């Protein structure tokens, strides 16, 4: 049986439970949410901006940002909008809220008020509640997205959508595997089905809400095929529940050809699988995340990583780029540092706005490779799910057919070991249980041997460690000293 759309009855009865999980959930009304969203002008709608950017072949810029208290959060967003010239705004949620630890979030709020500075790593939207969320979304001109990392984001979604946010990040896999330890996939995917249905419900009533699965996963040497497989599945899951504006993402790997190829492959694969699943009525956009792994501490070097990310994102024709800051290695950025990341990125994409990267045979080879890799895993997923991609993905992750490197979730197999080849492409050293075609495995092995040869060492785990540190130490490939 294929995973279908949640029925309205199921949705509503589950909703009753959800609203009870914290006082600010009480008394929320779907109708009032719809009504409020209906008053938001189209220029403040996230989905509208994404569609417009696709049509005009523009690349938009979005920072990450969130602090504990509402007034400070508003000041932060306003600064990023004016000084930082952000096209799209975020509200990054704190890590207690992400784990539904609203008590701890409340302590964080209290301590932040006392310390006169944010002691939370994000904005505790659930604790602040509906009216405060509206105060935030009304305080700026741009649309705001909720960005988090929450396995169970149902209450957060209900509150923030009714609060005027018009885009919601996450997914049942991408907000579990990299962000949780003991949450079962069945649970997180069910909760995200509910979130997607909530957004589908808004869509049913003519309110366009953008949805974005979290592409970069652990942000650390994630091979394109892993990220893209998750993106395709979460895309299917979202469309199944009635989502229409879908943004699929990918985190920069570092090699120009591989990154551009991954973004091209992402668009092609998504369209292929969505069509195959019977979806035709969706707006597909893409997001490119600037380098998501460890950053260099030196700010000049960080600027370089940021600019390189913007450059590749633009060459890859991303609809939007998520921007890092020169403080990345050290801590949550000040608003000034955040604006600096935006301005450096803006300069880069503007200098490239009329330039097109010629994508020739080398790129095509890599696009086709990535697509073949994804198809290999998707075939197995459909097989395991008896035709159902979502069920199949749960089985696949449990069996290690789909495996995310360096992830904290215990359900994740964790045997897949990536490392860079001699040209800095991310390749696979240990496939774990991934059922990859033999010729593809042979290609990866060949490429890694080339590296080993040129470094005069055998392919070894130390290379993985060296590669993890490489960018923060100023290189792409972790060569022996």
């Amino acid at each position: 049986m294929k995973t279908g759309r949640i029925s309205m009855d199921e949705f509503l009865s589950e909703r009753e439970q959800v609203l009870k999980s914290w006082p600010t959930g009480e008394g929320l009304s779907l109708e009032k949410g719809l009504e409020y969203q209906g008053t938001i002008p189209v220029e403040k709608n996230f989905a509208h901006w994404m569609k417009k950017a696709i049509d005009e072949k523009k690349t938009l810029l979005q920072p990450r940002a969130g602090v504990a208290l509402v007034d400070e959060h508003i000041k932060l967003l306003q600064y990023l909008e004016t000084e930082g010239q952000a096209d799209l705004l975020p509200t990054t949620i704190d890590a207690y809220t992400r784990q539904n630890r609203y008590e701890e979030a409340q302590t964080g709020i209290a301590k932040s008020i006392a310390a006169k500075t944010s002691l939370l790593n994000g904005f505790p939207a659930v604790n602040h509640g509906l009216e405060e969320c509206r105060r935030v979304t009304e305080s700026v001109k741009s649309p705001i997205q909720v960005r988090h990392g929450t396995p169970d984001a149902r209450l957060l979604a209900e509150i923030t959508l009714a609060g005027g946010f018009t885009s919601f990040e996450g997914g049942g896999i991408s907000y579990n595997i990299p962000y949780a330890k003991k949450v079962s996939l069945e649970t997180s995917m069910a909760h995200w089905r509910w979130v997607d249905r909530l957004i589908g419900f808004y869509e049913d009533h003519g309110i366009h809400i953008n949805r974005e699965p979290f592409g970069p996963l652990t942000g650390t040497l994630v091979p394109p095929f892993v990220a893209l497989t998750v993106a395709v599945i979460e895309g299917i899951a979202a469309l199944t529940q009635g989502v229409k504006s879908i943004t699929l993402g990918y985190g920069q790997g570092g090699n120009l050809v591989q990154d551009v190829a991954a973004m091209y492959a992402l668009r092609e694969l998504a369209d292929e699988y969505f069509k195959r699943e019977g979806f035709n009525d969706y707006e597909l956009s893409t997001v490119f995340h600037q380098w998501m792994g460890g950053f260099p501490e030196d700010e000049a070097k960080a600027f370089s990583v940021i600019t390189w990310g913007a450059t590749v994102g633009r060459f890859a024709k991303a609809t939007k780029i998520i921007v890092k800051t020169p403080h990345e290695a050290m801590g949550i950025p000040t608003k000034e540092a955040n604006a600096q990341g935006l301005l450096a990125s803006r300069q880069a994409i503007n200098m490239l706005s009329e330039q097109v990267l010629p994508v020739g045979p080398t790129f095509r080879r890599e696009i086709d490779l990535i697509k073949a890799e994804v198809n290999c895993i998707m075939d197995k997923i459909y097989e395991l799910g008896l035709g159902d991609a979502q069920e199949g993905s749960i089985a696949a992750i449990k069996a290690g057919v789909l495996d995310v490197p360096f992830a904290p979730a215990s359900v994740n197999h964790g045997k897949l070991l990536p490392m860079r080849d001699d040209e800095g492409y991310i390749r696979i050293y240990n496939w774990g249980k991934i059922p990859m075609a033999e010729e593809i495995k042979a290609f990866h092995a060949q490429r890694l041997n080339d590296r080993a040869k040129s470094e005069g060492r055998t392919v070894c785990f130390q290379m993985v460690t060296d590669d993890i540190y490489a960018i923060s130490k100023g290189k792409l490939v972790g060569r022996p000293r």
Partner: protein
Amino acid sequence: MGNINIVLGVIGFDCHSVGNKILEHFFTEKGYSVHNLGVMVSQEEFINAAIETAAPIIMVSSLYGHGEIDCAGLREKCIEKGLEDILLYVGGNLVVGKTPLEQVESKFRKMGYDRVFGPDADLEAVDSILRVDLKEKGFSL
């Protein structure tokens, strides 16, 4: 030296697992018995593991910025549980925002941590310091 136990983990609701895996790998290679509790570890879990393994040291990581909240009180709880002498090391991006290491250090020293490291901690240097600290506590390495 396989008999010296280290309890390792990332405290609070912090999911950053990469550094944790590297620390486990590094100290295992150095010959310690590493009891890695992974990410999202509570103070109780740290203490229980230390009691179980009779470890002379707990290594706490905090990357995500809530370190100041999550790490407070661990020393007191250790004393409560009879671990007066245990070494407490803490490292990572311990506070919210870019902050000079000296400030962070003094904050966490006051909380009772013996050693405080930044995200750029040179692990070889950490190992050397650890050996000195262990010797002082009477361990022969």
